[in-house]
C-alpha cells in the first residue's frame, strides 16, 4: 500500500480527500522504455551512470536530487526502488533551445515500467521538453510511473509538456517536482486524456526572487476513469508569480479529485498566486472533488482561487441548438474546445494529430 498525494493542510476525514491510498500490487517488467526522439543542439542527455565520471557534463546533480515532488515520500521510495537509473537532461548555460526535446513512452498491452527523469536547466538557458505516454491500442492495459525532477538555475526557463494518451487499461503515476531559482520560469502544459487510473502530483517551489510558474492542465474522464491530481505551489521567493488553470470534463461513471495549494510562505513578499478550475459535468453518475487551498503566512501578497463546477449552461445550450447542434453535440464541442485550448499550447504539430486521434477514439459512440 502506498499513501500518495497527501495535502499539506488536511481537512475533514469524511471527505476522503486528504490523501490517496494506492493499494494495488505493482509488478514491473521493465518493458516500455523511454525513446528520446530528438536531441537538439545545446542539450546533453545521459543517465545516472554518467554521474561522477571525469569530464562528463552530466555530473553535479545534487541540486536536482534535493527537489521534492508532489506525490510525496512514499512515492519517492517507490520510484527509487523501481528505477535504478534516471534519465538526465541538461540544457547548457545561456543556450536558448527552441527545438523541443521529445521523449516518448510507447506502452503496449501488458507493459509495466517506472522511470525517473531529471532535468537541469543551467543559468540563462531555455528549453522545451515534450513527454508523451501513449498506447497503440485504445484499450491497452499496464502500468507506467514517471517521476520528473527539475532544477531551474537563475534565469532559466523550461516549458514542460506532458501528454497522457495511454490505453484505458493503464494505470499512470506522474510525479513532478520543480525548484526555480531567481528569475527562473517554469511552464507546464499537461493533458490527462488516457489511462483508466491516473495519479498526478506536482510540487513547484518558487525559491528564487521573481521566479514564476504557469500551469495549464486539461483532462478528460470517461467511463470509470479515476483521476487524482495534487498540485502544490510554494512561494518562497519575493515577487514570485504563479497561475494555474485547470479545465476538463467528466462523463459516465468517472471520478476526479483536484487538490491545488497556493502556499504563500513567510518572507515571500509581493508574491502573487492564482488558481482556477473549470469542470464540466456531463453525466449524472460522475464524482467531482475539488479542494483549492490558499495558505498565507505573509501579508504583502495576493492569493486567489476560483472554481466553477457544473453542467453546460442553459444559455450556451440554447445558443448551440440555435446553430443546429444537438445537446450531445453541444457538450462534445464545448469539451473539445476546452481541451484544445490546452493542446494549442503544445509546440508540436505531430502531438496535436495524436491528441486529435485519441479524442476521436474516446468520443466514438
Amino acid at each position: 500500500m502506498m499513501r500518495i498525494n497527501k495535502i499539506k493542510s488536511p481537512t475533514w476525514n469524511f471527505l476522503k480527500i486528504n490523501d490517496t491510498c494506492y493499494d494495488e500490487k505493482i509488478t514491473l517488467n521493465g518493458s516500455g522504455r523511454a525513446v528520446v526522439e530528438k536531441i537538439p543542439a545545446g542539450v546533453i542527455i545521459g543517465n545516472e551512470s554518467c554521474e561522477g565520471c571525469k569530464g562528463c557534463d552530466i555530473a553535479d546533480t545534487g541540486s536536482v536530487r534535493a527537489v521534492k515532488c508532489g506525490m510525496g515520500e512514499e512515492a519517492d521510495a517507490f520510484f527509487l526502488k523501481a528505477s535504478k537509473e534516471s534519465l538526465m537532461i541538461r540544457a547548457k548555460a545561456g543556450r536558448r533551445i527552441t527545438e523541443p526535446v521529445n521523449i516518448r513512452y510507447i506502452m503496449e498491452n501488458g507493459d509495466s515500467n517506472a522511470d525517473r527523469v531529471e532535468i537541469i536547466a543551467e543559468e540563462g538557458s531555455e528549453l522545451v521538453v515534450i513527454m508523451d505516454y501513449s498506447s497503440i491500442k485504445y484499450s491497452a492495459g499496464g502500468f507506467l510511473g514517471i517521476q520528473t525532477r527539475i532544477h531551474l538555475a537563475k534565469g532559466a526557463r523550461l516549458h514542460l509538456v506532458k501528454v497522457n494518451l495511454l490505453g484505458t487499461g493503464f494505470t499512470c503515476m506522474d510525479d513532478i517536482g520543480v525548484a526555480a531559482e531567481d528569475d527562473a520560469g517554469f511552464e507546464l502544459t499537461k493533458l490527462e486524456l488516457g489511462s483508466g487510473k491516473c495519479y498526478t502530483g506536482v510540487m513547484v517551489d518558487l525559491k528564487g526572487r521573481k521566479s514564476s510558474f504557469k500551469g495549464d492542465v486539461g483532462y478528460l474522464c470517461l467511463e470509470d476513469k479515476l483521476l487524482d491530481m495534487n498540485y502544490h505551489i510554494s512561494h518562497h521567493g519575493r515577487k514570485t508569480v504563479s497561475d494555474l488553470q485547470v479545465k476538463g470534463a467528466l462523463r459516465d461513471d468517472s471520478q476526479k479529485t483536484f487538490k491545488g495549494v497556493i502556499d504563500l510562505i513567510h518572507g515571500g513578499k509581493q508574491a502573487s498566486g492564482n488558481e482556477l478550475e473549470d469542470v464540466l459535468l456531463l453525466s449524472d453518475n460522475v464524482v467531482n472533488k475539488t479542494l483549492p487551498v490558499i495558505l498565507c503566512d505573509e501579508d504583502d501578497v495576493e492569493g486567489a482561487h476560483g472554481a466553477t463546477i457544473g453542467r453546460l449552461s442553459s444559455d450556451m445550450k440554447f445558443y448551440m441548438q440555435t446553430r443546429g447542434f444537438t445537446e450531445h453535440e453541444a457538450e462534445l464541442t464545448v469539451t473539445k474546445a476546452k481541451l484544445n485550448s490546452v493542446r494549442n499550447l503544445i509546440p508540436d504539430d505531430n502531438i496535436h494529430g495524436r491528441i486529435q486521434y485519441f479524442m476521436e477514439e474516446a468520443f466514438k459512440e
Partner: protein
Amino acid sequence: MEKERTQVDDIDRSLYDFRYEEKDEDFYRVKEGLTPEIVREISREKNDPDWMLDFRLKSLEIYDSLKVPDWGPDISGLNMDDIVTYVRHKTKMQATWDEVPQDIKDTFEKLGIPEAERTSLAGVGAQYDSELVYHNVKEEVLAQGVIYTDMESALNGEYEDMVREHFMKLVPPTDHKFAALHGAVWSGGSFVYVPPGVKVEIPLQSYFRLNAAGAGQFEHTLIIVSEGADLHFIEGCSAPKYNVANLHAGCVELFVGKNARLRYSTIENWSKNMYNLNTKRALCEEGSTMEWVSGSFGSHVSYLYPMTILKGNDSHCEFTGITFAGAGQNLDTGAKMVHVGERTSSFINTKSISKSGGESTYRSAVVIQNTAKDSKASVSCTSLMLDDRSRSDTIPAMDIRTNQADVGHEAKIGRISDDAVFYLMSRGISEEDAKAMIVSGFADNVSKELPLEYAVEMNNLIQLEMKGAIG
C-alpha cells in the same frame, strides 16, 4: 522600504473580562476530569430520566474510543483531567431578574442582557456556568403557543417525548470526540418550539457566561420551527480570562420545518484561554430557509463549522460569517452544506481578519449528493492580513455527485488593493480616508446582517486608526 501598516485595535475585552468576587460555598461543582462516576453524579444532580443517564454513559464510551481531530489547530493544551465539567450556582432558575443572586445579576447587567430584554427581545435565557439562572419569555409570545424554556425543564416536564425524539439525532455522539463529550456531560441550554404558522416577530436570545476557572460549558440548544413558522434566535457567549484552559463544547440542533424560516445569529466572544469546540447543525425540510449569521471574535482555539442539511426540495441556506483573529488566537471557522433535496441552494459568504500573530482558517465543505438535482451552491471568502506575523488559510472542499448542479467558488487573500485606493483618491478622497472606507466596508455585508446592537458592537471592535497602507 518597510511599508506602513494600518493599525487595527485589538478587540476591547474589558467589557467581558471583569469578574465579581464569588464565594465557593455558593457553588456546587464536580471533581476535575471525566469518569463514569462524574457522569453519573451530573445525571443525578440534574434528575435525568433513566434513558438520559444511559445515553450519557454510552456517549462517554464513545468519547473514550475516538481520537482528537488530526486536521485542525493544535489542542494539546487542553487536558480533560483538569476540566471541571459541571459547576452550578446553588440557586434555582428564576423568572425575574430581581430574584437572581446579586453577583450573577450584576454580571448580566454589565453585559447588557436585562436591558436588551426590555428593549428588543421576546425572551431571554441566561446561563451561568453549567445551569440557567434566568429564563423568561414575553406573554404575547407564550400566547402564540411558542415554547421557550431551559433544556432541563423540557426534559423533565411535558416535552420529554419531544426532546427524546430530537436530542442528539442531528449530531450523534459518534460524530466526533467532542460531540461524544457533549453527550456525556451536557448541561443547560434552551429548548424552543414554534408551532405551525407562527411568526415570532422579535428575536429570542440565550446568553452563555462561563465564569468559573478551569471549567467547561456544555449547553445544548434544541430548536424546532414547525411548518410555515418563523424565528430569529440570537446566541451570545463570553467569559473572563484565566490562566488555565476553559472548554466550551456546546451543541446546537435546529429542525426547520416545511416552508419555515430560522435565522440563528451568534456573537462569540469567549476569553482567550477558551477552547471553543462547538457543534451546530440544522436540518431543513421542503421549502424552508436557514440563515446563519456568525461573528467569531474570542477564544484561544476555535473549531466552529455550522452544518446545514438541505434535505427538503427547494430548501435554502445562507451562511454569513466574520472571524477576527488577534494575538494568541487560532480560529478555525467556516461552514458545511449538504445538499440532498432537489432544487436546493446555498450561499456561503465569509470574511476574516488576522492581526498581531493571530491565525484564522476558513474551512468549508459543499457536498451535493446525487439526489440534489438542479441544486446551486456558491462560496465566497475573503481574508485580510494586517501584518506579517499573522496567518490566514482557506481550505474549501467541494464534493459534487451529480451533473445537474451548479457550484461556484471564489476566495481572495491579501491586503487592500492599490487600484481601489487610487480610484477613490481620484474622486477627491484622501489616501487615509480611502483606506479607512475600504477597510470599514470589508466587514459591512456581515455587520448589516447582525442585530443593530451587535452591529454597533462589532464596528466598535474593529476600530481603525488609519496610518499608511494595510500590508
